[in-house]
């Protein structure tokens, strides 16, 4: 099973209940803005602690309130691609890309900088500072940074939402290639129905 998630998350007065069970390589969470999709991703990434429940991805338990397991985010080996990119503004593209790679133990790295650069088409950007990148370039670097950190699964939080339609198309194709060529489970969040229908065979609606 790629994804086994059954948690309830408190957000202010609201309780968000999330249940995901799938063996697909790409599962999409779909729903309107404010439905709590991002909270679910944050809970899986370890950035937010659920009230209770259990999270296991690709056979590893990340959170289990019954047996008091709650791995900190740095122990979860998730490649998190944020909606807003979140490149480190004080580091060049190269150091952004290698940030997680350097922290990962050598046996966990399954991608090299050269391969990632080639795959994402970002070789010419290595010495640039993040604020000089276009939206599409920044999102490629963010995806590369996540892939290079040696993740066991990917969490993608609306990675296309801040892009114009031409860039969207580009990054979408990239994500399809990651899905088809790399052996890594992906949890993909979007509020755009055409996006999730194109990418995922399993769509879970959050409302």
């Amino acid at each position, binding site marked *: 099973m790629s994804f086994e998630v059954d948690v309830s998350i408190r957000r202010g007065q609201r309780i968000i209940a999330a249940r995901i069970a799938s063996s697909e390589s790409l599962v999409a969470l779909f729903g309107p803005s404010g439905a709590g999709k991002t909270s679910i991703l944050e809970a899986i990434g370890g*950035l937010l602690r659920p009230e209770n429940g259990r999270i296991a991805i690709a056979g590893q338990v990340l959170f289990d309130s019954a047996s008091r397991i709650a791995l900190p*985010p740095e122990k979860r080996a998730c490649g998190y691609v*944020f909606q807003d990119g*979140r490149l*480190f*503004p004080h580091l060049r593209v190269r150091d952004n890309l290698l*940030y997680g790679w350097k*922290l990962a133990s050598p046996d966990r790295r399954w991608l090299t900088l050269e391969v990632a650069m080639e795959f994402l088409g970002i070789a010419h950007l290595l010495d640039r500072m993040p604020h000089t990148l276009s939206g599409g370039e920044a999102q490629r670097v963010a995806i590369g940074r996540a892939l290079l950190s040696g993740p066991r699964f990917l969490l993608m939080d609306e990675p296309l939402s801040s892009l114009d339609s031409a860039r969207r198309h580009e990054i979408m194709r990239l994500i399809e290639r990651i899905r088809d060529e790399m052996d890594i489970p992906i949890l993909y969040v979007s509020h755009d129905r055409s996006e999730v229908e194109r990418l995922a065979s399993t769509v879970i609606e959050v409302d």
Partner: protein
Amino acid sequence: MTPISPSEWAVVALSLKVSCVAIVIMLPVSFGLAWLLERTRMPGKVLLDAFVHLPLVLPPVVTGWLLLLAFGSNGPAGRFLADTMGITLMFRWTGAALAAAVMALPLMVRAIRLSLGGVDRKLEAAARTLGASPWRTFTSITLPLAMPGVLAAVVLGFARSIGEFGATITFVSNVPGETRTLPLAIYTALQVPGGEGIVTRLALISVALSLAALVMSEWLVRRGRTGGGGHVL
């Protein structure tokens, strides 16, 4: 104008020593306080905040008097330092450094706190998901991004220390070679007929030191700045 005399150079050297020691001591203290005030939700934060700001709002003479009560030979802190470590601050340059440090504290805490508040917590979260421990996140993300504020704190604190007068003269008096820093030496020279030459020279040195600190901080920030933004003052 006559050149600067050795005794005047000694005043400058003493001032630099007092201010540098004050800043070196206060930098970790003010960073810790700024962190407590900005990043934690501890009880009594309002009180701590007010306490840190006291030297900024109290008359410096009152701060000096309070230091005298606490660190004087009969004060609790003064007696503790003398009994345990054999340190006396009275009439010593170390006391002048303490006075300068206390007066610089609120400015330093404010500058660091402001820059810590400006660090995007989302970037720290991103670093954690990439495998960075909380400490690693602090050293590789938070601290570099807060660096302009830390430099600003050093410059502001240094400028405040170099100019410190009231608390120093109240706490450790005006002892030549020990506590007579630039402002105290200028004040002393003003009381002496014919001291205008000394006053002018020392005043010019004060101006030069303050300007040099400002220019250096701008340079450091510019050198350290890689992204956009980041003003020192």
